[in-house]
């Protein structure tokens, strides 16, 4: 809202210069956005919050200034001379829809159309309104001055000389002043003649009844329109005007009559017109004046300071609230018609607080209560991040909105009704696709080759009622690990890197051990280099290389390893303290075993056989070497196992160890394996 200082000074003798005034207004809630200098004049640009429609005009801001500086507020000059036949002989007004239009004021004025005088044009330009002609300019001037929008019709172009405030008929057409033909519904309010709509109520006039050079007499409308009706109607047509902006936030019902008088006064003053005798005032629903009781004890309790009663009273009366009956400590105040935003005691407390000064309230802190802390779940989420960051992964945050096309292949998605673009049409159902893959592509385009990232965040899935929200952990590895140091060469990532990360997190935070299955994998994974978590208790999810088709579709080169797991099992796993295992009294006996077996025999299966054949003294078993290629025949693989035998109580005899080894060798041979170097 632009407020020229010279205009403001017509109503209050502001004792400070513009910058100081701007600061003082800011501290009562009218935030200064900037000051423009125009010669000797300054224009304050104020950010008026939506509830303060009463300050979307010069006089309203002047009222605030008058309270700040405890100075009198001058009222508007509403005097004017009348001439001619009574207005009601030329114009009839009817309110057909009282729910739309509680009050309709009108006057008839004989006008001499022409340009406005320079001072008036200048003022309008200062507040950002384009001058048109003296009649339209004066209506705009009055809107900017005291907040009431009004509209001048060419009386000769009102068929039947009658204005009706009513709801539009379904499909009724109206060409508005901007030249657009509007098709209306019964949810749009109109000002109509008996023959049809003339103006879009509270939003914009119509072309057919527009004031023109040929206009000799105007019918001036200043009505109070129901805020919700105007808001819905304007919104449905995608329209927003200075008038609708004010009406939909609640104009001053008493401003209607005053505005017609002020317009008559100004037209008379610039010699542009004379009012015919009489105000036509249709009041369908007289607004109830609200009375609100204010308790000083309540004011002090909410604000946390003591405001002297006289001070509170002076602030409120200065703002137009009329003190009335007292009951106990409470004083009843009548809310002025222009303060539709004030409806209960707390609103009066705010008024007192604003002008008493928030800066004058001493800062305190609420009394201490029991200490809170992060919940175990929140602590574990931080530990998860520490683990992954410590393991070399960088955290990313990708958008929850994704393109339906890019998310293809993943589960059903939740669609957004009004997305910013097609590319952000659905909520993500996976962190990896497309979020982490997009992250990889972004960085590859920057010339990065080695990318190791993770994200924690929620994914969405359609569900009865509200969509499901599941927190997930997503990982992505591409390129080399450990590259870029002078001492060593990097190593290209493989399945076992991503597996190790999942194992690390599961061991440190999660439900512990899990096994992997290779069936039932998501289509985006390489069927031979991926797995899903199985037998992991609450843990599930998948990990592995991206399918070559996916790599091609995303235009990625080299292998990319990803994993996506539900987060909750890591955050909620009960942390049972580990049980102590007695330390062995005798050293372990170590033996290596080299086996050549079919590739189809997994290491897990091999281990199971060895464990079962070796018996109770096999303490641990590790794969220490894996070899394929000559001299190992095609289709077979050489595996070296390191076995440790131990008894917690005594030293094992050579016979015991050899016996166990013999059983293992026998079993493996029976399974078709060949033992090397035995």
């Amino acid at each position, binding site marked *: 809202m632009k407020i020229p200082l010279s205009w403001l000074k017509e109503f209050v003798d502001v004792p400070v210069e513009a910058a100081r005034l701007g600061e003082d207004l800011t501290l009562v809630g009218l*935030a200064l956005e900037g000051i423009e200098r125009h010669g000797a004049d300054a224009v304050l640009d104020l950010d008026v919050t939506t509830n303060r429609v009463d300050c979307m005009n010069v006089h309203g801001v002047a009222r605030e200034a008058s309270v700040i500086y405890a100075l009198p507020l001058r009222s508007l000059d509403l005097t004017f001379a009348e001439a001619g036949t009574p207005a009601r002989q030329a114009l009839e007004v009817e309110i057909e829809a009282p729910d739309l239009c509680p009050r309709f004021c009108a006057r008839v004025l004989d006008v001499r159309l022409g340009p406005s005088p320079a001072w008036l044009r200048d003022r309008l330009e200062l507040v950002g309104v384009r001058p048109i002609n003296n009649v339209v300019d004066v209506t705009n001037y009055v809107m900017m001055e005291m907040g009431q929008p009004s509209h001048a019709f060419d009386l000769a172009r009102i068929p039947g000389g009658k204005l009706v405030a009513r709801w539009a008929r379904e499909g009724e057409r109206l060409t508005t002043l901007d030249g657009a033909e509007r098709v209306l519904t019964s949810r749009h309010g109109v000002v109509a003649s008996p023959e049809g709509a003339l103006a879009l109520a509270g939003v914009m006039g119509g072309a057919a009844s527009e004031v023109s050079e040929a206009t000799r007499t105007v019918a001036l409308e200043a009505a109070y329109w129901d805020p919700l009706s105007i808001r819905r109607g304007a919104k449905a047509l995608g329209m927003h005007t200075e008038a609708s902006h004010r009406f939909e936030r609640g104009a001053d019902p008493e401003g209607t009559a005053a505005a017609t008088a002020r317009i008559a006064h100004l037209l008379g003053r610039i010699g542009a017109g004379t009012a015919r005798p009489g105000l036509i005032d249709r009041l369908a629903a007289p607004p109830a004046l609200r009375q609100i009781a204010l308790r000083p004890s309540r004011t002090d309790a909410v604000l946390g300071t003591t405001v002297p009663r006289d001070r509170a009273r002076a602030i409120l009366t200065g703002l137009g609230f009329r003190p009335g009956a007292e009951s106990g400590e409470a004083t009843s105040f009548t809310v002025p018609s222009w303060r539709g935003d004030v409806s209960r005691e707390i609103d009066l407390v705010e008024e007192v*607080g604003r002008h008493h000064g928030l800066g004058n309230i001493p800062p305190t802190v609420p*009394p201490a209560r029991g200490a809170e802390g992060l919940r175990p779940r929140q602590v574990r989420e931080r530990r998860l991040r520490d683990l992954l960051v410590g393991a*070399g992964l960088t955290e990313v945050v990708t958008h*929850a909105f994704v393109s339906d096309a890019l998310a293809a292949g993943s589960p059903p998605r939740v*669609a957004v009704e009004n997305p910013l673009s097609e590319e952000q049409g659905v909520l993500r159902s996976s962190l990896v696709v497309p979020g982490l893959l997009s992250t990889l592509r972004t960085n590859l385009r*920057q010339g990065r080759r080695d990318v190791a990232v993770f994200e924690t965040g929620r994914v969405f899935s359609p569900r009865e009622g509200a969509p499901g929200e599941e927190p997930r952990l997503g990982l992505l590895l591409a390129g080399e690990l450990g590259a870029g140091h002078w001492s060593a060469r990097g190593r290209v990532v493989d399945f076992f890197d991503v597996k190790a990360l999942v194992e690390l997190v599961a061991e440190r935070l999660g439900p512990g051990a899990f096994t992997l299955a290779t069936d039932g994998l998501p289509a985006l994974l390489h069927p031979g280099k991926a797995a899903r978590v199985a037998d992991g208790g609450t843990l599930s999810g998948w990990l592995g290389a991206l399918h070559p088709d996916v790599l091609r579709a995303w235009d990625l080169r080299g292998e990319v390893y990803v994993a996506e797991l539900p987060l909750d099992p890591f955050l909620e796993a009960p942390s049972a303290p580990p049980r102590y295992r007695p330390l062995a009294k005798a050293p372990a006996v170590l033996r290596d075993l080299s086996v050549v077996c079919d590739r189809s025999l997994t290491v897990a299966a091999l281990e199971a056989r060895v464990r079962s054949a070796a018996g109770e003294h096999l303490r641990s078993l590790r794969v220490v070497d894996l070899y394929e290629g000559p001299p190992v025949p095609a289709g077979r693989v050489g595996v070296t196992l390191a076995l440790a035998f131990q008894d917690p109580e005594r030293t094992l005899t050579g016979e015991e160890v050899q016996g166990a080894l013999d059983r293992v060798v026998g079993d493996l041979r029976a399974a078709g394996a060949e033992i090397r170097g035995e």
Partner: protein
Amino acid sequence: MAGEGDTLRDRVRAIRAEFETALVAAGDVSTLQAVHDRFLGRKSGAVGELMKSLGRLPPEERREAGQELNALRDELESRHEAARGEAEDRLRAERLREQRVDVTLPGRLPARGRRHPLTSTREDLEDIFVSMGYEVYDGPEVDDDYHCFEALNMPPDHPARDMQATFYLKDPPGLVLRTHTSPAQVRYMLSNPHPPHVRIICPGKVFRRDDDLTHSPMFHQVEALVVGPGISVGDLKGTVQAFLHALFGPQYPVRFRPSYFPYTEPSIEVDLGCIVCSGRGCRVCKGTGWLEIMGSGMVHPAVFEAVNRRLGRVAYDPEQVTGFAFGLGIDRVAMMRHGIGDIRLFYANDLRLLEQFPS
């Protein structure tokens, strides 16, 4: 046999001189050993040879000459010992020199990842509030109209809904992506185990239909809610001040000015003295010297009433309890802390940016 005596003395003198010359010429331990063998060797050392000739001396001279030769041997031994020590020191020093590494080469760190700057900022904010006795609470990102607007004194068609351009879900209708984390506050009050006492912060993702340098359709907020008997604007001011001082440092002034939010009354905007220009006025604060940092206010009684209606009992009697709430953008705080001018950089996930934040 006086000649013999002179000869012995001459020989001693000659041996000493030769030894000195050889010792000086010998640079390393093995050459020194050769010098030792030559002069002091048991078998054919020069001093030993001379000792053997003692027998030829008359007994009265033999004693004196023997002492002289012993003294010579001791002297040469000790000279040699010292020289060998020095040579060994040199050798050791040289070896150590050879073993030196270039300490200016980069250290070998384990792989190093980073937290996202939005996460570190959020955790810092959480830590400050936790230290002030707050609980950290979050709700769903997709919420319904009731929790996001209606319970917060924003009935349908409320003009304030325009302030928060909302994303709606296609199906089912009535669901929105939360435009602020306030619905989590409503949820907390509804499920509060110890009403009317509340002291929480709600950090989380929020969504609004905006996309420019300072607005992202997805961003992060943290909101605080304190409810109880006797909570006042003064408490709001003290708490906000303590929080901002903990976050940015006590050197920045904090300003409170009236504003408007439907769910608070009075509503208060909080400004922080510009951390770029320290209040002198710059491009970042648009010359005002102040940065808008958060919205706040006293919980509107209508919010308590809505919660009570939903609960079917008066858990928060607006006559008995008051509360304050405030909310700020985590992204905005991170932008201010790190001097980032474009919010969208947080979601571009360019490692060149992320790797600038050690954490």
